[in-house]
């Protein structure tokens, strides 16, 4: 059935007859796997889109209240820029055919046979628009990760400039190499849903931005000692974490791109086990260190574990997911505490997405089950199964290449921005908060505008004539 459909497809699209297209639609309608795959990919894509709300609440919770509103403006702007950029060129660079860079399917226009233009996703019967939407929300997630390190002091325009470069060039090329059919993947690098391709790329962009941006005012004493700048709302942070956790059930399981075989449910379980292990490991590590059950670290542990299992979610057994998640939970605590001494990363993005992304990618080289490697058709089993370091080597090469590529391009982009437009707001604007200085309005107006200024413009008193005394039941 499939081969036949492909042949007819090829014939029809070359002739491009209008009647042929209708026939093609009818053929697709006969094949239920098209509908099932498409529904699953779109549902998963919508879940991933919701992760934007997760990032927003996580960042708002970890910001001070004078910088709460700006996060919403940023998320909306970035998501929109990414949507149009990725449709125009990003998707073609990332998933079009090509070894170094994709070069087919710009503007989703005249792409002919999708299985030839976007060959790497040919195994799924979902329509190409479904696959595009799914991959676009991944690009938007990667972009959202970039800004975690830059809260509370960056100029708004920087988001706009870098978002265009990132969504058109940096993310598409990096992800093409890793999971778009590019040379790293052909080489045997395993990254099921993007520990490297999405999370590490975002975190490396965040690292480059932070190096140019510097710490928030008051983060370090004159002697260089770090001080906590507590975020203003842990409940919102927790909501963000849970939304991200939910979204990850689209992120990893959706990367199967197939709804007909039910395999995505395995990925759901693996993903969830890792996240659970991450929370407990992060809580435990923090308890050993400070003898308190740290709320922020519990959340960071969940995120780090989800990031780490992203690469292995389609490659590892459930027991290995627990190991990967637990190690990520430890890594994120140690990483946040170490990085905080020198670099001001308000949400811990460098640890949760960067270090955990590296760990997750390398973990494939340790824990990939040979059966699943064969099933996915990429690479081979990991070290614990066959004592062979080959796969670990592929994974390490991938991490190094992606880091070097994304860091150099991002560092350069931010360098240019810094020396033309500027990266930081003025110290006075930073003290007043980005909400009022960049957007002219507060996220929480009543915290900043005295209530007396908000009432009384209409003449002051509530009543011009005193009310007539009325006997009430209490007086009787």
């Amino acid at each position, binding site marked *: 059935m499939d081969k036949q459909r492909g042949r007819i497809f090829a014939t029809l699209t070359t002739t491009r007859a209008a009647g042929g297209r209708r026939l093609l639609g009818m053929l697709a309608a006969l094949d239920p796997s098209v509908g099932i795959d498409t529904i699953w990919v779109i549902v998963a894509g919508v879940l991933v889109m919701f992760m934007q709300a997760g990032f927003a609440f996580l960042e708002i919770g970890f910001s001070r209240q004078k910088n709460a509103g700006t996060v919403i403006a940023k998320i909306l702007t970035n998501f929109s820029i990414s949507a149009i950029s990725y449709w125009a060129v990003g998707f073609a660079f990332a998933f079009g055919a090509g070894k170094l860079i994709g070069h087919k399917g710009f503007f989703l226009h005249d792409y002919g046979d999708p299985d030839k233009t976007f060959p790497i996703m040919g195994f799924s019967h979902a329509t190409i628009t479904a696959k595009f939407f799914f991959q676009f929300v991944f690009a938007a997630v990667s972009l959202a990760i970039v800004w975690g390190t830059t809260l509370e002091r960056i100029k708004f325009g920087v988001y706009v400039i870098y978002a265009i470069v990132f969504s058109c060039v940096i993310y598409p090329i990096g992800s093409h190499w890793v999971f778009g059919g590019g040379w790293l993947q052909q080489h045997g690098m395993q990254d099921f849903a993007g520990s490297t391709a999405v999370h590490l790329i975002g975190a490396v962009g965040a690292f480059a931005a932070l190096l140019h941006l510097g710490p928030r*005012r*008051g983060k370090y004493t004159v002697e260089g000692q770090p001080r906590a700048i507590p975020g203003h709302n842990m409940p919102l942070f927790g909501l963000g974490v849970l939304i991200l956790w939910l979204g990850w059930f689209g992120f990893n399981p959706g990367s199967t791109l197939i709804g007909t075989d039910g395999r995505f449910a395995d990925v759901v379980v693996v993903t969830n086990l890792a996240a659970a292990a991450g929370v407990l490991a992060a809580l435990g590590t923090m308890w050993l260190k400070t003898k308190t059950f740290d709320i922020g670290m519990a959340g960071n542990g969940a995120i780090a574990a989800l990031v780490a299992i992203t690469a292995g979610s389609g490659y590892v057994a459930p027991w290995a997911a627990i190991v990967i998640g637990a190690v990520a939970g430890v890594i994120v605590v140690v990483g946040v505490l170490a990085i905080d001494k020198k670099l001001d990363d308000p949400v811990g993005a460098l640890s949760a997405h960067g270090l955990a992304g590296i760990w997750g990618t390398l973990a494939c080289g340790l824990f990939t089950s040979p059966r699943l490697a064969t099933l996915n058709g990429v690479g081979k089993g990991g070290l614990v199964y066959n004592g062979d370091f080959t796969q670990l080597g592929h994974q390490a090469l991938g991490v190094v290449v992606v880091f070097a590529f994304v860091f150099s391009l991002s560092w350069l982009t931010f360098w240019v921005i810094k020396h033309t437009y500027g990266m930081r707001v003025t110290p006075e604007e930073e003290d007043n908060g980005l909400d*009022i200085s960049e957007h*002219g*309005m*507060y996220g929480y107006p009543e915290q900043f*505008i005295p209530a007396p*200024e908000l009432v009384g413009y209409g003449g002051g008193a509530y009543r011009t004539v005193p009310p007539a005394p009325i006997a009430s039941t209490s007086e009787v």
Partner: protein
Amino acid sequence: MKMVAAYIRHEAFEPIRTELLTLGFPSLTISEVKGSGRQKGITERYRGAELTNYLRPKIKLECVVADADVQTIVDTILKHGRTGAVGDGKVFVIPVEQSYRVRTGESGEEVLQAHPDAAAATS
């Protein structure tokens, strides 16, 4: 005894507090206040509509000290509070009639002395 009441910028407070502590004056109170003076208001735009906010946030710092120490306190506040721009704030010195420490019932200037531990911690 005098009370020094200073209306200052938020960012001036931490350097002032640190220096007063090293000078042996750990006892002070602050409040988040909003007030107006020569500093202009700030205009907020809420979905296109404007709202001018004339009262600006400041920190009110209060500190009761012996007469001889007043100048030290005032000098510290002036040193760290001054940016040169409108809105740096004002300092007032107000006479205080009597003081009591609640825990012991002591009264007079003895109440104003730093705790021996606090004094030791700064050296």
